[in-house]
């Protein structure tokens, strides 16, 4: 122990300086923050408004639909964890197990908040379903390929299913107007839809930019360069304010859909440039080999070139998706009540004047938790691919 201390903290004069600096930071910053979180902060503002922060004004009697989405997500994550992540080659010891256990503990931890946010049984069943998925994936060793296919299918249909569940469907499920969506729910929806839609659009734009046909090529270049030259806020304003001018009065697109369109169109332009970077890294020989085998242009792209190009840019894509997630907070400006927007309305409540620290600290932690999860999953993906393509 002492030797470890000496080697790692006091090895040279530089280490000594860094150690002292570290101690200074811990004493002066970390300690006060922890003390504030544990003793001084008035968390009642968060706990009383938990439902608002999570789902906005989504009607209480319909909240079970959101729970259904969360439970399905827990199951899918559990399955994927068991099928892929915990088995990936190069998993250093129990690291993925540790992260898994922490993830399992998060939902019950939420139940520790006093004065009744979500019910404990619901939160527990999130963990339980995640665990069931994981166990199913590890125990049913004979059905691995079937499970893998089902899980992949599950991920593909997950977001459409959630969208239908949350929005409602004709007579079966009463429609919940998107004006009532809010909080973390809205943030996640904007992010998920943004990622899922901008991905194919971005790939098409990247391919279009390399097209031999001048019209397509110049259209794609113009699109990409215009969007990249404009801040996201402008695009969001355009989507909210300018778009209705072009459409006939009878067509009313709701504001959330307009924001989703804005985010998607914006993200697609950046994605296209990243994909283009990946495409440029594929050697000519790969194109020639694919052509020499008689593959047609579409097969060449989808089977040979794109899979390699996308693999190369996984780290960049993960980064882009994280910033997309955080950038959704800009929809506050066009008065949608996402996590940040709803936090601002909570702060306007007369009972909770002066609780900015608590509220912003809380939503900061949520943003961090989700960003970190995306980034950790991305690391796994990178590792797996390095293994398969040494």
């Amino acid at each position: 122990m002492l030797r470890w201390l000496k080697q790692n903290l006091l090895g040279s004069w530089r280490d000594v300086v860094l150690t002292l600096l570290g101690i200074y930071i811990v004493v002066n910053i970390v300690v006060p923050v922890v003390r504030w979180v544990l003793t001084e902060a008035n968390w009642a503002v968060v706990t009383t408004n938990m439902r608002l922060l999570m789902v906005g004004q989504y009607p209480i009697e319909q909240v079970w639909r959101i729970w259904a989405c969360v439970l399905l997500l827990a199951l899918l994550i559990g399955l994927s964890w068991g099928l892929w992540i915990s088995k990936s080659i190069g998993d250093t010891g129990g690291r993925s197990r540790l992260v898994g256990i922490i993830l399992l503990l998060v939902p019950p931890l939420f139940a520790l908040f006093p004065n009744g946010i979500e019910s404990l049984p619901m939160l527990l069943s999130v963990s339980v379903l995640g665990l069931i998925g994981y166990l199913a994936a590890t125990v049913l060793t004979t059905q691995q390929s079937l499970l893998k296919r089902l899980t992949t299918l599950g991920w593909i249909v997950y977001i459409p299913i959630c969208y239908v569940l949350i929005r409602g469907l004709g007579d079966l499920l009463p429609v919940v107007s998107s004006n009532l969506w809010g909080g973390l729910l809205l943030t996640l929806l904007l992010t998920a839809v943004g990622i899922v839609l901008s991905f194919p659009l971005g790939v098409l734009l990247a391919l279009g930019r390399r097209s031999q046909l001048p019209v397509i090529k110049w259209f794609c270049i113009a699109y990409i360069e215009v969007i990249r030259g404009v801040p996201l806020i402008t695009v969001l304003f355009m989507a909210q304010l300018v778009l209705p001018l072009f459409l006939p009065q009878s067509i009313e697109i709701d504001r959330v859909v307009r924001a989703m369109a804005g985010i998607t169109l914006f993200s697609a332009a950046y994605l296209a440039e990243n994909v283009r970077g990946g495409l440029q890294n594929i050697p000519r020989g790969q194109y020639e080999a694919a052509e020499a085998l008689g593959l047609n242009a579409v097969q060449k792209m989808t089977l040979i070139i794109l899979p390699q190009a996308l693999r190369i840019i996984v780290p960049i894509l993960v980064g882009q998706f994280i910033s997309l997630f955080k950038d959704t907070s800009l929809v506050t400006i066009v008065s949608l009540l996402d996590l940040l927007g709803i936090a601002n309305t909570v702060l306007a409540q007369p009972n909770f004047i002066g609780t900015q620290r608590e509220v912003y600290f809380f939503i900061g932690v949520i943003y961090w938790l989700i960003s970190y999860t995306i980034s950790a999953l991305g690391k796994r993906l990178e590792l797996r691919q390095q293994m398969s393509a040494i």
Partner: protein
Amino acid sequence: MHEINTNSTNTPPIISCRDVHKWYGEFHALRGVNLDVKKGEVVVIMGPSGSGKSTFIRTINRLEVHQRGDIVVDGIELTHDVRNIEKIRSEVGMVFQSFNLFPHLTVMENITLAPVWVRKWKKEKAEEVATELLQRVHIPEQAQKYPGQLSGGQQQRVAIARALAMQPKVMLFDEPTSALDPEMIKEVLEAMSDLAESGMTMICVTHEMGFARNVAHRVGFFDQGNIVEIGPPDQIFRNPEQARTKQFLAQILH
């Protein structure tokens, strides 16, 4: 060297190139190349670097576009018609200097990809054929590995198997051993010799003298964008007629 069917003189050649020209901008890379290849024939093409020999065999499956002249492969003329090009490409296998295996796919997937997607075979059938081909190039145990895990010689043999999986009528080899360490050249040449023995029509750009002497029916000497001299290996190596051929052979034989 096996005998090719000499009666075939009156049947049309499987590859026929007439007056093939290609320009890269100002540079006249191919200057009216003529070459007929009979079914089952093995033709080796040699020549100094930059002479256009690689460009020439790449025009045969349209990896390079020729601007003048006719190329007919197995009765199909190469034109700008995309369907013709894809048709010819599925009949002509190609092996590259730098292997060009698909690094994101296993050896088995590399070989079965084109049969499944282009020939529309069932996956089981394609895998059966692939296993057979891997045995033929002596690496059946590598089927589930990725190309990056194989040696250069093994990769090139996988590339040969990948091209053969399409059951092509003609095989083109573009300097298949130039990127290999000396100890791996032999295993690739053996695979090529076996293939020639089985009656495959082959055009090989290579400087492997031993291979040319023992396997080729004809050796062509390529210089400055054209075939300067072509004939049986004995004649080309012992009594070349052209001064340029003599000079080149003297250089590569030391």
